[in-house]
Protein backbone atom coordinates (compact mmCIF):
# COMPACT_ATOMS: atom_id res chain seq x y z
CA UNK A 1 0.00 0.00 0.00
CA UNK A 2 2.74 2.44 0.99
CA UNK A 3 4.88 2.23 -2.16
CA UNK A 4 1.72 2.47 -4.25
CA UNK A 5 0.50 5.60 -2.44
CA UNK A 6 3.91 7.27 -2.68
CA UNK A 7 4.26 6.34 -6.34
CA UNK A 8 0.76 7.52 -7.24
CA UNK A 9 1.32 10.81 -5.44
CA UNK A 10 4.65 11.36 -7.20
CA UNK A 11 3.00 10.63 -10.55
CA UNK A 12 0.12 13.01 -9.81
CA UNK A 13 2.54 15.74 -8.76
CA UNK A 14 4.57 15.28 -11.97
CA UNK A 15 1.44 15.42 -14.15
CA UNK A 16 0.29 18.48 -12.21
CA UNK A 17 3.62 20.20 -12.68
CA UNK A 18 3.62 19.39 -16.40
CA UNK A 19 0.07 20.74 -16.83
CA UNK A 20 0.92 23.87 -14.83
CA UNK A 21 4.15 24.70 -16.64
CA UNK A 22 3.53 23.56 -20.23
CA UNK A 23 -0.14 22.86 -20.91
CA UNK A 24 -1.79 25.80 -19.13
CA UNK A 25 -1.84 28.95 -21.32
CA UNK A 26 -0.80 32.27 -19.75
CA UNK A 27 -3.73 34.25 -18.34
CA UNK A 28 -4.84 37.36 -20.27
CA UNK A 29 -4.54 39.53 -17.15
CA UNK A 30 -2.05 37.72 -14.87
CA UNK A 31 0.21 36.48 -17.68
CA UNK A 32 2.63 33.72 -16.73
CA UNK A 33 2.08 34.43 -13.04
CA UNK A 34 -1.10 32.36 -13.15
CA UNK A 35 1.19 29.33 -12.85
CA UNK A 36 1.97 30.27 -9.23
CA UNK A 37 -1.69 29.71 -8.43
CA UNK A 38 -1.37 26.03 -9.32
CA UNK A 39 0.76 25.72 -6.20
CA UNK A 40 -0.90 28.45 -4.14
CA UNK A 41 -4.52 27.25 -4.22
CA UNK A 42 -3.75 23.53 -3.67
CA UNK A 43 -1.35 24.42 -0.83
CA UNK A 44 -4.05 26.54 0.83
CA UNK A 45 -6.55 23.68 0.59
CA UNK A 46 -3.96 21.26 1.96
CA UNK A 47 -3.28 23.66 4.87
CA UNK A 48 -6.96 23.78 5.81
CA UNK A 49 -7.23 20.03 5.38
CA UNK A 50 -4.21 19.47 7.62
CA UNK A 51 -5.67 21.82 10.25
CA UNK A 52 -8.97 19.92 10.16
CA UNK A 53 -7.12 16.60 10.58
CA UNK A 54 -5.06 18.08 13.44
CA UNK A 55 -8.21 19.28 15.19
CA UNK A 56 -10.13 16.04 14.73
CA UNK A 57 -7.24 13.78 15.74
CA UNK A 58 -6.36 16.02 18.73
CA UNK A 59 -9.94 15.98 19.96
CA UNK A 60 -9.97 12.18 19.65
CA UNK A 61 -6.64 11.99 21.49
CA UNK A 62 -7.97 14.13 24.35
CA UNK A 63 -11.05 11.94 24.52
CA UNK A 64 -9.58 8.44 24.12
CA UNK A 65 -5.93 9.08 25.10
CA UNK A 66 -4.84 6.73 22.35
CA UNK A 67 -1.30 7.62 21.27
CA UNK A 68 -2.09 6.84 17.65
CA UNK A 69 -4.42 9.86 17.53
CA UNK A 70 -1.62 11.98 18.91
CA UNK A 71 0.71 10.88 16.11
CA UNK A 72 -1.88 11.94 13.53
CA UNK A 73 -2.62 15.17 15.38
CA UNK A 74 1.05 16.04 15.54
CA UNK A 75 1.52 15.31 11.83
CA UNK A 76 -1.55 17.42 11.06
CA UNK A 77 -0.29 20.39 13.09
CA UNK A 78 3.13 20.28 11.46
CA UNK A 79 1.65 20.04 7.97
CA UNK A 80 -0.85 22.83 8.72
CA UNK A 81 2.08 25.08 9.64
CA UNK A 82 4.08 23.93 6.59
CA UNK A 83 1.31 24.33 4.01
CA UNK A 84 -0.02 27.61 5.43
CA UNK A 85 3.56 28.95 5.32
CA UNK A 86 3.85 27.78 1.71
CA UNK A 87 0.48 29.41 0.93
CA UNK A 88 1.66 32.72 2.37
CA UNK A 89 4.96 32.55 0.50
CA UNK A 90 3.45 31.69 -2.91
CA UNK A 91 0.67 34.22 -2.34
CA UNK A 92 3.21 36.97 -1.77
CA UNK A 93 5.25 35.95 -4.83
CA UNK A 94 2.05 36.13 -6.90
CA UNK A 95 0.72 39.29 -5.23
CA UNK A 96 3.71 41.50 -5.99
CA UNK A 97 3.48 41.28 -9.82
CA UNK A 98 -0.32 40.94 -10.07
CA UNK A 99 -1.67 43.16 -7.26
CA UNK A 100 1.47 45.33 -7.11
CA UNK A 101 1.96 44.58 -3.39
CA UNK A 102 3.58 41.76 -1.44
CA UNK A 103 0.86 41.83 1.16
CA UNK A 104 -2.72 43.09 1.42
CA UNK A 105 -4.89 43.28 4.52
CA UNK A 106 -7.41 40.93 3.06
CA UNK A 107 -9.42 38.34 4.97
CA UNK A 108 -7.89 35.23 3.45
CA UNK A 109 -4.34 36.50 3.87
CA UNK A 110 -4.87 37.46 7.50
CA UNK A 111 -6.74 34.23 8.24
CA UNK A 112 -3.93 32.16 6.74
CA UNK A 113 -1.34 34.13 8.72
CA UNK A 114 -3.35 33.57 11.92
CA UNK A 115 -3.61 29.86 11.12
CA UNK A 116 0.15 29.73 10.56
CA UNK A 117 0.93 31.51 13.85
CA UNK A 118 -1.49 29.41 15.91
CA UNK A 119 -0.08 26.13 14.57
CA UNK A 120 3.49 27.35 15.08
CA UNK A 121 2.42 28.07 18.67
CA UNK A 122 0.89 24.59 18.87
CA UNK A 123 4.20 22.98 17.84
CA UNK A 124 6.20 25.19 20.23
CA UNK A 125 3.92 24.24 23.12
CA UNK A 126 4.58 20.56 22.41
CA UNK A 127 8.35 21.01 22.27
CA UNK A 128 8.67 23.33 25.26
CA UNK A 129 6.36 21.50 27.69
CA UNK A 130 7.86 20.06 30.88
CA UNK A 131 7.35 16.44 29.85
CA UNK A 132 6.26 14.69 26.63
CA UNK A 133 2.90 13.52 27.95
CA UNK A 134 1.97 17.06 28.95
CA UNK A 135 3.22 18.35 25.60
CA UNK A 136 0.87 15.99 23.78
CA UNK A 137 -2.10 17.08 25.88
CA UNK A 138 -1.39 20.82 25.70
CA UNK A 139 -0.64 20.91 21.98
CA UNK A 140 -3.81 18.91 21.30
CA UNK A 141 -5.77 21.55 23.21
CA UNK A 142 -4.15 24.33 21.13
CA UNK A 143 -4.87 22.47 17.87
CA UNK A 144 -8.57 22.23 18.75
CA UNK A 145 -8.75 25.84 19.89
CA UNK A 146 -6.94 27.12 16.80
CA UNK A 147 -9.19 25.31 14.34
CA UNK A 148 -12.41 26.48 16.01
CA UNK A 149 -11.15 30.06 16.22
CA UNK A 150 -10.05 30.40 12.59
CA UNK A 151 -13.57 30.72 11.03
CA UNK A 152 -14.45 33.49 13.51
CA UNK A 153 -11.20 35.28 12.64
CA UNK A 154 -11.96 34.84 8.95
CA UNK A 155 -15.42 36.37 9.04
CA UNK A 156 -14.36 39.22 11.31
CA UNK A 157 -11.61 40.19 8.85
CA UNK A 158 -14.00 39.79 5.88
CA UNK A 159 -16.28 42.36 7.46
CA UNK A 160 -13.41 44.63 8.46
CA UNK A 161 -12.26 45.02 4.88
CA UNK A 162 -11.49 42.86 1.88
CA UNK A 163 -9.64 42.91 -1.46
CA UNK A 164 -9.04 39.26 -2.43
CA UNK A 165 -11.14 38.26 -5.43
CA UNK A 166 -14.22 36.21 -4.65
CA UNK A 167 -13.98 32.43 -4.97
CA UNK A 168 -13.75 31.32 -8.62
CA UNK A 169 -15.27 27.93 -7.86
CA UNK A 170 -18.37 27.74 -5.66
CA UNK A 171 -21.68 25.92 -5.44
CA UNK A 172 -23.11 28.55 -7.79
CA UNK A 173 -20.85 27.38 -10.60
CA UNK A 174 -17.35 27.58 -11.99
CA UNK A 175 -16.01 30.93 -13.26
CA UNK A 176 -12.85 29.43 -14.71
CA UNK A 177 -11.99 28.48 -18.29
CA UNK A 178 -11.42 24.71 -18.75
CA UNK A 179 -7.75 25.14 -19.76
CA UNK A 180 -7.09 26.62 -16.28
CA UNK A 181 -9.49 24.34 -14.44
CA UNK A 182 -7.77 21.09 -15.46
CA UNK A 183 -4.27 21.96 -14.11
CA UNK A 184 -5.85 23.41 -10.97
CA UNK A 185 -7.93 20.29 -10.39
CA UNK A 186 -5.01 17.90 -10.99
CA UNK A 187 -2.69 19.93 -8.77
CA UNK A 188 -5.30 20.12 -6.03
CA UNK A 189 -5.71 16.38 -6.17
CA UNK A 190 -1.92 15.95 -6.16
CA UNK A 191 -1.45 18.21 -3.12
CA UNK A 192 -4.22 16.47 -1.19
CA UNK A 193 -2.59 13.13 -2.01
CA UNK A 194 0.76 14.59 -0.88
CA UNK A 195 -0.92 15.71 2.35
CA UNK A 196 -2.24 12.20 2.90
CA UNK A 197 1.16 10.58 2.25
CA UNK A 198 3.01 13.07 4.46
CA UNK A 199 0.43 12.64 7.24
CA UNK A 200 0.85 8.86 7.16
CA UNK A 201 4.66 9.01 7.00
CA UNK A 202 4.95 11.63 9.75
CA UNK A 203 2.55 9.71 12.01
CA UNK A 204 4.57 6.51 11.38
CA UNK A 205 7.80 8.34 12.21
CA UNK A 206 6.26 9.66 15.45
CA UNK A 207 5.22 6.15 16.44
CA UNK A 208 8.74 4.84 15.71
CA UNK A 209 10.20 7.64 17.85
CA UNK A 210 8.00 6.54 20.76
CA UNK A 211 8.87 2.85 20.30
CA UNK A 212 12.59 3.57 20.33
Amino acid sequence: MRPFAVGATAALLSVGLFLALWVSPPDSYQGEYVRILYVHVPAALAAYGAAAVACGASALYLWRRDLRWDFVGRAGAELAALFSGLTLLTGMLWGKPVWGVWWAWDARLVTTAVLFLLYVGCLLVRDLADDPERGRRLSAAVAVLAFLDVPVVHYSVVWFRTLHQGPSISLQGVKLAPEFLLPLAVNTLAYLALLGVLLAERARLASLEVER
Partner: protein
Amino acid sequence: MRAWRRVVAVARKDLLLEWRGRDALIPAGSFGLAVLLVLGLVSGGGWEAAPPALWVSLLLAAVVAAGRGADREGEEGTLEALLLYPGSREDLFWGRWLAVCVLLLLLGAGLWGVQVLLFNAPTRGVGVLVLAGLLSAFGLAAVGTLLAALLTHVRAGPLLMPLLFLPATVPVLLAGVRLSEAAASGAPAGPWWGVLAVFDLLFLLVGPALFEVVVEA
Protein backbone atom coordinates in the same frame (compact mmCIF):
# COMPACT_ATOMS: atom_id res chain seq x y z
CA MET B 1 -19.90 23.05 48.52
CA ARG B 2 -22.13 24.18 45.69
CA ALA B 3 -20.54 24.97 42.35
CA TRP B 4 -21.19 28.71 42.43
CA ARG B 5 -19.70 29.00 45.91
CA ARG B 6 -16.53 27.29 44.71
CA VAL B 7 -16.44 29.69 41.76
CA VAL B 8 -16.85 32.72 44.02
CA ALA B 9 -14.25 31.36 46.47
CA VAL B 10 -11.63 30.96 43.72
CA ALA B 11 -12.40 34.40 42.25
CA ARG B 12 -12.29 35.97 45.71
CA LYS B 13 -8.92 34.35 46.43
CA ASP B 14 -7.45 35.63 43.15
CA LEU B 15 -8.82 39.13 43.64
CA LEU B 16 -7.72 39.23 47.28
CA LEU B 17 -4.17 38.26 46.29
CA GLU B 18 -4.32 40.91 43.61
CA TRP B 19 -5.57 43.51 46.09
CA ARG B 20 -2.76 42.70 48.51
CA GLY B 21 0.02 42.39 45.96
CA ARG B 22 -1.31 44.45 43.04
CA ASP B 23 1.13 42.54 40.86
CA ALA B 24 -1.17 42.15 37.83
CA LEU B 25 -3.24 45.32 37.62
CA ILE B 26 -0.44 47.86 38.13
CA PRO B 27 2.11 46.27 35.75
CA ALA B 28 -0.56 45.51 33.14
CA GLY B 29 -2.12 48.96 33.48
CA SER B 30 1.24 50.71 33.20
CA PHE B 31 2.12 48.58 30.21
CA GLY B 32 -1.22 49.44 28.55
CA LEU B 33 -0.51 53.11 29.24
CA ALA B 34 2.91 52.85 27.61
CA VAL B 35 1.38 51.19 24.53
CA LEU B 36 -1.31 53.91 24.34
CA LEU B 37 1.36 56.60 24.56
CA VAL B 38 3.56 55.04 21.88
CA LEU B 39 0.63 54.45 19.52
CA GLY B 40 -0.61 58.01 20.06
CA LEU B 41 2.86 59.33 19.32
CA VAL B 42 3.35 57.48 16.04
CA SER B 43 -0.24 57.96 14.81
CA GLY B 44 -0.25 61.72 15.38
CA GLY B 45 -2.76 61.35 18.22
CA GLY B 46 -5.89 62.42 16.30
CA TRP B 47 -9.25 61.27 17.70
CA GLU B 48 -9.75 58.88 14.76
CA ALA B 49 -6.70 56.93 15.92
CA ALA B 50 -8.21 56.55 19.39
CA PRO B 51 -10.30 53.34 18.95
CA PRO B 52 -7.48 51.21 17.47
CA ALA B 53 -5.02 52.52 20.06
CA LEU B 54 -7.45 51.79 22.91
CA TRP B 55 -8.17 48.22 21.82
CA VAL B 56 -4.58 47.33 20.97
CA SER B 57 -3.42 48.62 24.35
CA LEU B 58 -6.23 46.72 26.09
CA LEU B 59 -5.38 43.48 24.29
CA LEU B 60 -1.68 43.76 25.12
CA ALA B 61 -2.47 44.64 28.73
CA ALA B 62 -4.80 41.63 28.84
CA VAL B 63 -1.91 39.35 27.81
CA VAL B 64 0.03 40.53 30.87
CA ALA B 65 -2.93 40.51 33.28
CA ALA B 66 -4.34 37.12 32.28
CA GLY B 67 -1.00 35.36 32.67
CA ARG B 68 -0.34 36.67 36.15
CA GLY B 69 -2.78 34.53 38.15
CA ALA B 70 -1.40 31.36 36.61
CA ASP B 71 2.22 32.55 37.12
CA ARG B 72 1.47 33.05 40.78
CA GLU B 73 0.17 29.51 41.09
CA GLY B 74 3.09 28.16 39.08
CA GLU B 75 5.61 29.91 41.34
CA GLU B 76 3.96 28.84 44.59
CA GLY B 77 2.81 25.44 43.35
CA THR B 78 -0.69 26.17 44.67
CA LEU B 79 -2.50 24.82 41.61
CA GLU B 80 -1.86 21.26 42.77
CA ALA B 81 -3.45 22.10 46.12
CA LEU B 82 -6.48 23.65 44.43
CA LEU B 83 -6.88 20.58 42.24
CA LEU B 84 -7.00 18.34 45.32
CA TYR B 85 -10.21 19.96 46.55
CA PRO B 86 -13.33 17.97 45.71
CA GLY B 87 -15.65 19.14 42.96
CA SER B 88 -15.47 19.90 39.28
CA ARG B 89 -12.42 21.51 37.73
CA GLU B 90 -14.71 23.64 35.65
CA ASP B 91 -15.46 25.64 38.80
CA LEU B 92 -11.78 26.47 38.98
CA PHE B 93 -11.95 27.78 35.42
CA TRP B 94 -15.01 29.90 36.12
CA GLY B 95 -13.50 31.31 39.32
CA ARG B 96 -10.31 32.29 37.57
CA TRP B 97 -12.35 33.60 34.63
CA LEU B 98 -14.44 35.81 36.92
CA ALA B 99 -11.33 37.31 38.52
CA VAL B 100 -9.73 37.98 35.12
CA CYS B 101 -12.99 39.57 33.91
CA VAL B 102 -12.90 42.01 36.83
CA LEU B 103 -9.26 42.89 36.11
CA LEU B 104 -9.95 43.40 32.39
CA LEU B 105 -12.95 45.63 33.07
CA LEU B 106 -10.85 47.77 35.44
CA LEU B 107 -8.04 47.93 32.87
CA GLY B 108 -10.49 48.80 30.09
CA ALA B 109 -12.13 51.56 32.11
CA GLY B 110 -8.75 53.05 33.03
CA LEU B 111 -7.33 52.89 29.52
CA TRP B 112 -10.55 54.33 28.09
CA GLY B 113 -10.26 57.33 30.44
CA VAL B 114 -6.63 57.95 29.52
CA GLN B 115 -7.42 57.56 25.82
CA VAL B 116 -10.13 60.26 26.07
CA LEU B 117 -7.54 62.63 27.53
CA LEU B 118 -4.59 61.74 25.26
CA PHE B 119 -6.50 61.57 21.96
CA ASN B 120 -9.11 64.19 22.74
CA ALA B 121 -11.59 61.41 21.87
CA PRO B 122 -15.35 61.98 21.96
CA THR B 123 -17.17 60.51 24.97
CA ARG B 124 -20.44 59.79 23.16
CA GLY B 125 -22.06 56.35 23.17
CA VAL B 126 -20.80 55.24 26.59
CA GLY B 127 -23.61 52.67 26.79
CA VAL B 128 -22.37 50.97 23.61
CA LEU B 129 -18.80 51.00 24.90
CA VAL B 130 -19.77 49.51 28.26
CA LEU B 131 -21.63 46.66 26.57
CA ALA B 132 -18.77 46.13 24.09
CA GLY B 133 -16.30 46.15 27.00
CA LEU B 134 -18.34 43.58 28.94
CA LEU B 135 -18.73 41.21 25.98
CA SER B 136 -15.03 41.57 25.09
CA ALA B 137 -13.97 40.96 28.68
CA PHE B 138 -16.00 37.72 28.79
CA GLY B 139 -14.29 36.34 25.68
CA LEU B 140 -10.80 37.65 26.41
CA ALA B 141 -10.94 36.33 29.98
CA ALA B 142 -11.96 32.88 28.71
CA VAL B 143 -9.06 32.74 26.22
CA GLY B 144 -6.65 34.25 28.77
CA THR B 145 -7.64 31.85 31.56
CA LEU B 146 -7.31 28.83 29.30
CA LEU B 147 -3.97 29.86 27.78
CA ALA B 148 -2.49 30.90 31.13
CA ALA B 149 -3.29 27.47 32.58
CA LEU B 150 -1.99 25.82 29.42
CA LEU B 151 1.34 27.63 29.49
CA THR B 152 2.04 27.21 33.23
CA HIS B 153 4.09 24.07 32.62
CA VAL B 154 5.67 25.17 29.35
CA ARG B 155 9.15 26.63 29.18
CA ALA B 156 9.11 30.22 27.87
CA GLY B 157 5.34 30.20 28.59
CA PRO B 158 5.20 34.00 29.06
CA LEU B 159 6.73 34.37 25.57
CA LEU B 160 4.23 31.98 23.98
CA MET B 161 1.27 33.73 25.63
CA PRO B 162 1.17 36.68 23.17
CA LEU B 163 1.94 34.37 20.22
CA LEU B 164 -1.24 32.40 20.89
CA PHE B 165 -3.39 35.10 22.54
CA LEU B 166 -3.08 37.87 19.94
CA PRO B 167 -3.94 35.87 16.78
CA ALA B 168 -6.75 34.05 18.58
CA THR B 169 -8.38 37.29 19.77
CA VAL B 170 -8.27 39.18 16.43
CA PRO B 171 -12.11 39.10 16.25
CA VAL B 172 -12.39 40.96 19.59
CA LEU B 173 -9.89 43.57 18.43
CA LEU B 174 -11.74 44.22 15.16
CA ALA B 175 -15.19 44.21 16.77
CA GLY B 176 -14.00 46.51 19.56
CA VAL B 177 -12.51 49.02 17.12
CA ARG B 178 -15.61 49.09 14.92
CA LEU B 179 -18.00 49.32 17.89
CA SER B 180 -15.97 52.19 19.39
CA GLU B 181 -16.10 54.00 16.06
CA ALA B 182 -19.83 53.34 15.84
CA ALA B 183 -20.32 54.65 19.39
CA ALA B 184 -18.39 57.84 18.61
CA SER B 185 -20.14 58.54 15.31
CA GLY B 186 -23.58 57.13 16.11
CA ALA B 187 -23.31 54.89 13.02
CA PRO B 188 -24.95 51.42 12.97
CA ALA B 189 -22.85 48.67 14.52
CA GLY B 190 -23.21 46.22 11.60
CA PRO B 191 -22.37 42.58 12.34
CA TRP B 192 -20.04 43.34 15.26
CA TRP B 193 -22.34 42.46 18.15
CA GLY B 194 -22.78 39.10 16.46
CA VAL B 195 -19.01 38.62 16.10
CA LEU B 196 -18.50 39.31 19.82
CA ALA B 197 -21.42 37.05 20.76
CA VAL B 198 -20.14 34.14 18.63
CA PHE B 199 -16.59 34.56 19.93
CA ASP B 200 -17.83 34.60 23.55
CA LEU B 201 -20.10 31.62 23.01
CA LEU B 202 -17.29 29.61 21.41
CA PHE B 203 -14.70 30.24 24.11
CA LEU B 204 -17.13 30.04 27.02
CA LEU B 205 -18.13 26.58 25.77
CA VAL B 206 -14.70 25.30 24.68
CA GLY B 207 -12.69 27.08 27.41
CA PRO B 208 -13.92 25.11 30.45
CA ALA B 209 -13.84 21.79 28.56
CA LEU B 210 -10.22 22.25 27.43
CA PHE B 211 -9.25 23.70 30.83
CA GLU B 212 -10.10 20.40 32.49
CA VAL B 213 -7.77 18.56 30.13
CA VAL B 214 -5.04 21.16 30.47
CA VAL B 215 -4.80 21.20 34.28
CA GLU B 216 -4.66 17.40 34.68
CA ALA B 217 -1.68 16.51 36.84
